[in-house]
């Protein structure tokens, strides 16, 4: 069942076409990988889905409802959460407060509710549980900016989870991580997927992609060039050519 349907998505920036007529879907319960060389438009795709950019053409439907062009907060409140390629936690806020910012989506819509205290047993307990889930329990009160990169990345995931998402978009979650951290990340992704969250990854790290993704979509220069299971994608000459160049694909045959 398609959770997110993207049709003919096109986005241009000052004459550069970042996304060209992209049509793809994200199926409920899957772990989908979006791969492609740098500049392929992968992050732009995430940005259009989450409302940071308004597409020039095309539609994005979440559970059948069009969401393209909506404000980011509206999309977040519908259950689509994301992490960022260059990690951006709220630096002077504690880890707990970082998570609570997203957890507060339950309260922000109503003015009366939003004036209630943010630190109360229920919310603090929920934040602690989320931090625990990603392995950050012990650092709860530190300013998020002081964390090392690997922990910042986990914090972003905890923060995204506080939105209670049905769709989680992870933008290069393994970027800058050491091997063992990447393995822990894989376990976390699998675990979240088993809890019922549909996960879409942008990744360059091929072992991660092959290790956890059930299906792949390949973008190159804003165009979708391939789609399928990881093994088939690995052998696809168009994909190889996109990454390595024309002559390489011929020599691989």
């Amino acid at each position, binding site marked *: 069942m398609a959770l997110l349907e993207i049709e003919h998505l096109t986005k241009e920036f000052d004459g550069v076409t970042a996304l060209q007529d992209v049509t793809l879907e994200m199926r409920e319960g899957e772990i989908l990988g979006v791969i492609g060389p740098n500049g392929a438009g992968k992050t732009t795709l995430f940005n259009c889905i989450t409302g940071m950019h308004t597409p020039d053409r095309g539609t994005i439907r979440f559970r059948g409802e069009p969401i393209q062009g909506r404000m980011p907060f509206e999309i977040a409140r519908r259950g689509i959460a994301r992490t960022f390629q260059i990690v951006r936690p709220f630096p002077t806020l504690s880890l707990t407060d970082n998570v609570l910012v997203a957890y507060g*989506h339950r309260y922000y819509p109503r003015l009366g509710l*939003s*004036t209630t*205290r943010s630190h109360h047993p229920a919310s603090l307990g929920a934040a602690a549980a989320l931090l625990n889930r990603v392995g950050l329990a012990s650092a709860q009160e530190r300013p998020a900016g002081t964390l090392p990169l690997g922990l910042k990345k986990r914090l972003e995931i905890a*923060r995204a989870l506080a939105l209670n998402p049905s769709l989680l978009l992870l933008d290069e979650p393994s970027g800058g991580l050491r091997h063992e951290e990447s393995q822990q990340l894989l376990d976390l992704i699998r675990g979240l997927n088993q809890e019922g969250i549909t996960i879409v990854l942008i990744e360059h790290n091929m072992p991660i992609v092959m290790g956890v993704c059930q299906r792949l979509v390949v973008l190159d220069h804003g165009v979708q060039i391939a789609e399928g299971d990881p093994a088939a994608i690995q052998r696809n000459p168009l994909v190889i050519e996109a990454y390595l160049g024309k002559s390489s694909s011929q020599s691989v045959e």
Partner: protein
Amino acid sequence: MLSGYLITVLITIGIYVVLALSLNMITGYAGQISLGHAAFMGIGAYTSALLFTRAGFSFWPAFLVSGVVAGLVGAILAIPCLRVREDFLAITTMGINFVVEAIFLYIPFFGAGMGIGGILPPTVFGREISKPEFLLLVIVLILATIAVDRWLIRSWIGLGWAAIREDEEAAGAMGIDVVRFKVLAFTLGSAGAGLAGSLYAHFLTFIMPVNFGFGQSILILSMVVFGGIGTLRGPILGAIFLGALPEVSRPVMEYRTLLYGVLLLLLMRYQPGGILGEDSVLIRGWRRLWPAAMHS
């Protein structure tokens, strides 16, 4: 007993404390630069003055209406402001200050260059309140402002403002309606400035457009920054210090501007977070001495 002169100084400082705290809500908590805060002080002052001198309002209802009107205008002006980029927001708020001042200066309804006079102090049961009692009124307003500030900081709104201040885009991605929260900060901050303006009008008993110009806005912003932007204690200290400075520096009055400039330069160089800001020497020392007091 306090001398009349001292009480006057304290009342002036007290009004600046309210102005600094209200600006701090917009600039310190929500992170939105505003170089036009005095405009809303002026809107409050003129609303109170006009209601009193021309519509027969007594002080108390005029005071409340001033806050509401200033808040409303703040909300209306905030909406177009907030769709511009940060650096343009500074210029836009500055522009608002000049436009509002010009409206007071050139439109006869507002008394033009002569301003509005004949504004009487508040009365209670038919008796005009004394200066010490006016000081009490100012202190009550300060305490009420502090109470509202503390309540909002601890609420989900305060958390939303903090997120917007730190990273507006990420805040939006986490479910915060950034525009609505910014407008809220502007509305509340402007309402506070309006209330301070009303007190100012009924204290001085006459007001002129020049009282609410860009220079006044910069002075209020300096107080917030000097004391420690984003904290509750900072703007209070900044208002006290910079509000008292003209009186304290009377012996060297010709060099006052130089003194201000040097102070601000030293501040920016050594304690850019403000004298009582999060990272300041004083606060870090305080925390080392009393680790139990590790809350703000």
